[in-house]
């Protein structure tokens, strides 16, 4: 026994690669369930950081958030009534574990703060739903209910900024469906099956199927007197609104965004539609549009965007970016779509401190990086942490992804017209629209961003039921060949883990890395393992 090495491994954790007598992360997981025989020993400082500052800190703060935002009674009532909260959100720390597996030092710390931001915002929303829900309060439409606005999750939160001092908006599907898939991929299957049980074929976008399915299973709280919906990002979203309208049966305003968002002519129309939507909210709430509140919130959102640009700068030009691929992707899409909220600023402040230290000290945050990867198109929701695995197993470091790049703008607040115009532009670049279902040329912006972020490889998501992306499949094949770009495809069906399993995704990447790239894995224990029952 080499005592010196044992002590070193105890203090610093085992080294990453097999060549250095590596840590074999695959060995600490139980077969099938993915539970840990024991959580990873990352060395004394990082294990203690994980224990105190991530695991314990987040458990304590989750309880505090629940107490502060709606109370324990509402939470328990909600857990007993709604599958998506009970089945999904209790094992949330395992979501952290999967996303942060193998991370060390600044990468562990920076990424974890992103998770904290998302958890807090999620609690805030479901607690608001429960506090307002007439079903949990004997059919009474209480004051919270009257001060809540429901919306489709593709309506940007900024639409409600002018009322944000008095009202809170909660998207109908973001918490009951979208976030659940990342945390516990089992829950959503109930909703997909439910909507197919009433006759919907299996081929429309499964994300939209699930969004409709939560209504079919009567699993959406009755938490607001009105709804604002939207056509983004695709045909199935439009149609989902039709089913939702039937089952929710409330005053509904449709806020359709023009499809041809590059055409300067469409902006005027879009601006007028947004103003109509604001009139609807005024009518329904009886509260006038508050310009000062709007400016305040837009400015706050601009601050978040400016920090994001700083992060991109570091990610693109240094090895000191302390955020892993999954944390970057999820935090960014959540923040940009939900809109401004205090917790984002709090977390950004923490991340800034970590990032500035990394840059100043030139810390290589992902030292085993072999390839800098850009992930393009829409990611598998049930395996958003594939990039953590890919780094641990192959040294594939996902630097940036398409979802992070969509809302690449700040909003002008000098005049009402400017603000409105920018809101229109922002909203037309909806999630999954600008570079996925939107115009063909935007999908091929990949090459610009690949260069900008100094990436040498593409992880090309292949959402099997996205008509917009599938409609361009062959051109990407041609382009990859023609440009001699190393690219691997990741087929998936967004939330539905039954179509392409996690193991199948790993197998495809393994095949590419060994047969095309002729590389050896950093951690061979991660090549093949059974996590078929994992959350």
């Amino acid at each position, binding site marked *: 026994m080499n005592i010196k090495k044992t002590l070193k491994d105890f203090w610093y954790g085992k080294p990453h690669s097999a060549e250095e007598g590596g840590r074999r992360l695959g060995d600490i997981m139980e077969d099938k*369930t993915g*539970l*840990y*025989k*024991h*959580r990873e020993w990352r060395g004394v400082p990082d294990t203690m950081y994980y*224990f105190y500052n991530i*695991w*314990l800190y987040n458990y304590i703060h989750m309880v505090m958030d629940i107490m502060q935002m709606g109370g324990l009674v509402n939470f328990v009532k909600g*857990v*007993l009534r709604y*599958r998506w909260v*009970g*089945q999904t959100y*209790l*094992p949330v*720390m*395992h979501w952290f*574990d999967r996303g942060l597996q193998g991370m060390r030092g600044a990468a562990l710390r920076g990424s974890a703060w992103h998770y904290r931001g998302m958890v807090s915002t999620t609690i805030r929303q479901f607690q608001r739903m429960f506090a307002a829900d007439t079903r949990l309060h004997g059919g009474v439409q209480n004051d919270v209910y009257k001060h809540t606005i429901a919306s489709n999750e593709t309506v940007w939160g900024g639409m409600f900024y002018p009322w944000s001092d008095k009202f809170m908006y909660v998207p109908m599907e973001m918490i009951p469906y979208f976030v659940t898939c990342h945390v516990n991929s089992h829950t959503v299957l109930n909703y997909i099956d439910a909507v197919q049980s*009433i006759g919907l074929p299996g081929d429309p976008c499964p994300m939209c199927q699930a969004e409709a399915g939560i*209504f*079919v*299973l*009567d699993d959406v709280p009755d938490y607001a007197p009105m709804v604002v919906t939207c056509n983004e990002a695709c045909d199935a979203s439009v149609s989902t609104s039709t089913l939702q309208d*039937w*089952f929710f*049966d409330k*005053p*509904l*305003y449709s806020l359709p965004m023009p499809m041809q968002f590059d055409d300067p002519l469409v902006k005027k129309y879009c601006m*007028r539609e947004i*103003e*109509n939507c604001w*009139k*609807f909210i005024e*009518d329904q709430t009886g509260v006038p549009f508050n310009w000062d509140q709007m400016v305040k919130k837009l400015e706050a959102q601009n601050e978040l965007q400016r920090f994001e640009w700083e992060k991109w700068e570091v990610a693109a030009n240094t090895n000191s970016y302390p955020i892993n691929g999954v944390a970057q992707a999820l935090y960014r899409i959540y923040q940009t779509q939900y809109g401004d909220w205090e917790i984002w600023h709090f977390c950004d402040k923490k991340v800034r401190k970590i990032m500035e230290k990394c840059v100043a000290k030139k810390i290589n945050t992902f030292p085993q990086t072999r390839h800098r990867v850009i992930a393009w198109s829409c990611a598998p929701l049930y395996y958003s942490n594939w990039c953590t695995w890919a780094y641990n197993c192959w040294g594939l470091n996902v630097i940036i992804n398409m979802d992070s790049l969509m809302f690449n703008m700040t909003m002008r607040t000098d005049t009402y017209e400017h603000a409105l115009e920018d809101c229109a532009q922002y909203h037309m670049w909806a999630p999954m629209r600008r570079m996925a279902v939107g115009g063909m040329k935007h999908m091929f912006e990949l090459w610009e961003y690949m260069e900008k972020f100094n990436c040498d490889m593409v992880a090309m998501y292949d959402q099997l039921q996205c008509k917009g992306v599938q409609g361009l499949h062959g051109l990407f094949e041609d382009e990859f060949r023609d440009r001699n770009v190393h690219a691997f495809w990741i087929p998936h069906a967004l939330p539905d883990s039954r179509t392409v399993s996690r193991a199948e995704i790993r197998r495809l990447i393994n095949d590419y890395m060994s047969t095309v790239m002729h590389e050896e894995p950093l951690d061979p224990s991660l090549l093949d393992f059974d996590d078929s029952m994992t*959350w």
Partner: protein
Amino acid sequence: MSKFAKFLFKLCGIVLVLNVALFAVFFFDLDGKLLFNVVEPFLKNHYDNMERRDTLQTPYDMDKFPKYDYNT
């Protein structure tokens, strides 16, 4: 040893034991195992057996809501 010192000693002991216990829960993923093997199956069973409204019976009134048209 003064009473305060005793209390402090006791407190440290409790904190230490609590820390060790929590660390054991953390390190051996006992929270995950409890949730996976006990809590989730119980809740799933609960949700599966819940009585639910037949949503297909929801009325679909043609003229329940006005045309929300503002022409700004």
